[in-house]
């Protein structure tokens, strides 16, 4: 590169010189140039670090200097050491022969979980929210970092903190184990649970921070997040102290692994959702999320089927289907808020032939395609679950108290999904037309409808009979809560015709939606501009060029 710098002259006038000698560059601006093995290692390390997420590097540097991080780290250390000392003093001298690991472990768990459940998610939330708030995010956005890299960079630095806290508590755990009274598997299970919970909370914190535009909303969401983490801390502590530390748990590896996998899939979902929120509006921000949700559904079905098979409890099928309905209802509400207008950028990838349109349109952004995606995926999931249920039902393993037949469960659950989601869509559509794409109206309408569905029939009861009926009857079909509760009953839902009724009403609402939906298929594929094609080619050539340049450099 024979680059003549026009800047050389200028720089000599701009940069002050000390006694005519140039000021040395900071070490960051120097190539590692050590000799021998050390130098070689240094270069390899430098190469490895280049592949790390820049945000991780930045935040690691920052946190080493940040007071807040040092304070929490030392608090954690002091608390765990303090607890150890207290433990030893109280149990002395019995500690030498009594198994007292469990009591110490509870203390360590509390200290660690405070840092992992409360501190880390809140820091992650603040970290991204502050970037978005203070305009530093915009400077990041115009670099080559994609939205996904930015969000995962934030997640990476949260993970680095988790790692540091874990390593601080590790000697204490080893000590615990040596004192006996607690099994290695209990310690490990506890740590896995703490880690997974912390990951889910942190990624959720990141999603929330991308919604937090403006100070008031941010404060509001922060309070919500604090409430959530405190609640989780409480529930997890109860669960771990009662269920895990009692060491009465048993089960297969898959039985633990699958639920953890489902939980981890939510981490991926939340991170992608956060990335979609901050990505440029003209980009396709939906397809990736939809793919992740499909994978989640597969994981969920596998988990449920495994649970039903392993425990021989057909109730798991009922539960699994109910959760699918809830999940897709919630997703469907959010999808309603997607933008109706698609950018030319998205339309460049719009399926162009009739066949691909039939198959692929549902994956493209937009509230209409999203609605169809939710419903069809949910249906596929329910049918799979029901088929598994029927298989068990017919093979007549001792699934004893039969509950409700999977066929009726499909009718009931899909009816609820079609009906409630269809109504949310119909009611919020005019509002969305006026205010543009936003999640707020569908969420409010959704919550109101769920509430009315439960309360409505009781009001009718009061008007007709003067009091709320204590026995379930078809009038309460819109009361999803009561109806679902009945499906878990050992006698099953009675009268079973309720499910048929729900299905018919739901299908009717769906039909109305479908008529309106056809208007969304006016989209046509847009040609990729020549300039973009040309640029793609240039980029490929340039990449090939640098690759070969690198090769020649390393050869020489």
């Amino acid at each position, binding site marked *: 590169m024979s680059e003549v710098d026009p800047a050389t002259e200028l720089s000599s006038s701009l940069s002050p010189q000390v006694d005519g000698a140039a000021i040395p560059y900071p070490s960051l*601006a120097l190539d590692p140039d050590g000799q021998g093995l050390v130098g070689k290692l240094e270069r390899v390390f430098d190469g490895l670090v280049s592949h790390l997420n820049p945000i991780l590097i930045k935040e690691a540097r920052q946190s080493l200097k940040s007071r807040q991080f040092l304070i929490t780290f030392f608090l954690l250390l002091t608390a765990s050491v303090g607890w150890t000392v207290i433990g030893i003093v109280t149990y002395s001298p019995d500690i030498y022969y009594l198994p007292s690991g469990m009591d110490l472990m509870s203390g360590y768990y509390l200290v660690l979980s405070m840092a992992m459940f409360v501190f880390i998610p809140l820091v992650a939330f603040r970290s991204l929210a502050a970037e978005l708030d203070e305009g*530093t995010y915009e400077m990041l956005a115009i670099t080559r970092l994609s939205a996904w890299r930015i969000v995962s960079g934030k997640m990476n630095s949260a993970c680095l903190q988790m790692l540091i806290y874990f390593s601080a508590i590790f000697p204490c755990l080893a000590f615990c184990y040596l004192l006996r009274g607690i099994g290695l598997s209990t310690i490990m299970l506890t740590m896995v649970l703490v880690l997974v919970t912390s990951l889910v909370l942190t990624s959720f914190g990141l999603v929330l921070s991308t919604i937090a535009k403006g100070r008031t909303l941010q404060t509001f969401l922060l309070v919500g997040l604090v409430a959530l983490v405190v609640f989780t801390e409480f529930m997890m502590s109860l669960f771990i102290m009662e269920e895990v530390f009692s060491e009465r748990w048993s089960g297969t590896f898959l039985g633990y692994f699958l639920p953890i996998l489902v939980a981890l899939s939510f981490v991926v979902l939340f991170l992608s959702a956060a990335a979609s929120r901050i990505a440029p509006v003209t980009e396709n921000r939906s397809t990736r999320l939809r793919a992740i949700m499909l994978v989640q559904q597969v994981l969920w079905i596998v988990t449920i089927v495994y649970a039903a098979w392993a425990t021989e409890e057909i109730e798991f099928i009922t539960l699994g289907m109910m959760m699918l309905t809830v999940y897709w209802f919630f997703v469907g509400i959010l999808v309603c808020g997607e933008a109706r207008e698609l950018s030319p950028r998205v339309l460049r990838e719009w399926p162009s032939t009739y066949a691909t349109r039939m198959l692929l349109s549902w994956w493209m952004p937009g509230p209409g395609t999203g609605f169809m995606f939710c419903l069809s995926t949910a249906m596929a999931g329910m049918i799979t679950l029901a088929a598994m249920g029927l298989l068990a039902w017919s093979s007549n393993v001792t699934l004893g108290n039969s509950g409700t037949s999977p066929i009726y469960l499909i009718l009931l659950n899909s009816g609820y999904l079609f009906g409630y989601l269809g109504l949310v869509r119909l009611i919020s559509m005019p509002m969305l037309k006026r205010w543009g794409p936003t999640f707020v109206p569908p969420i409010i309408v959704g919550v109101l409808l769920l509430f009315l569905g439960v309360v409505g029939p009781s009001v009718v009861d009061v008007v007709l009979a003067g009091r709320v009926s204590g026995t379930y009857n078809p009038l309460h079909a819109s009361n999803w809560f009561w109806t679902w509760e009945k499906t878990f009953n050992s006698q099953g839902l009675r009268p079973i015709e309720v499910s048929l009724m729900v299905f018919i009403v739901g299908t009717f609402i769906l039909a109305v939606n479908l008529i309106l939906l056809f208007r969304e298929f006016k989209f046509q594929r847009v040609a990729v501009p020549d300039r973009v094609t040309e640029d793609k080619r240039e980029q490929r050539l340039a990449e090939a060029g640098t690759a070969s340049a690198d090769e020649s450099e390393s050869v020489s």
Partner: protein
Amino acid sequence: MNSPLRTPWQGPMIELQQLTKVFGDTRAVNNVSFMVPRGSVFGYIGPNGAGKTTSMRILSTLELPTSGDAFIEGLSSVNDPDRVRRRLGFMPDAFGTYSDTNCAEYLDFFARSNGLVGRERTRRLRWVMDFTGLRSMSEKPINGLSKGMRQRLCLGRALIHDPSTLILDEPAAGLDPRARIDLRQIIRTLAADGKTILISSHILSELAEMCDRVGIIERGTLLANDTVAGLKGKSKPHQDLIVLIDGDPTAAMQVLSEIPTVANLEHRGQAIHFQTGVGADRRIEILHRLCDARVRVLEYRPVDESLEDLFLKVTTGQVQ
């Protein structure tokens, strides 16, 4: 960076096409179109609230237009933000910084974020530190920097990936005279290096010397788009001229009074004032006539209108 395989884009480096942005009731940018060719400096001038920042943010992919489009090297900021971002260095008017970070770390972070690795990264870091004169400050925390130094750091950040196009939003605002001169020198150097620059200010004189063209914007509408000289020429149908002569002015007065395009002729001592309706290219003919009549002309120049007067005239709608 420039591999021989690449033929550079021949069209305009920056282009706004009927760009409009509406915030609620305000039309922040109203149907603005202009182009900036490769290697030139375009001054974007207008009072506060004129819509400069908004249009620059749209160009920089940070905001979406209500209608119209903006292009960098022929690529749309709206539909291909990722491609635009690789070519663009943007320096906003106000920028947040990270706490617990020093200049070198800040620049290193943005170098990595722009995909620079290994030797390329360290080479660019050294270049930027030298170019902006930040080498001696590199280990200082950002929060302790002076305004001028922060501006340079921000410019360094915008330059780190060697973009072809620079968008600088009021870079001179709040700088002391010395820092302003440095900045002007920096921008001249960058332009000489072939970078295309869009620079905004609310003070015309700040930019007049370094811009190839200026656009004047007020309340979202582009009122003028011309060279500084052209703006001055256009601002008045009649140009005031001064001829300073050696000796008795009567002969010169005689010659001038015979020229039909000369009006309002008068003299004070040896300085003759007059107005002419002809354009700059034909004013030389007047001088020829004087020389032919053996008048000894010491000086022949237009009466310079102050840039601020000009700006006031353009923005109050006297010139369109």
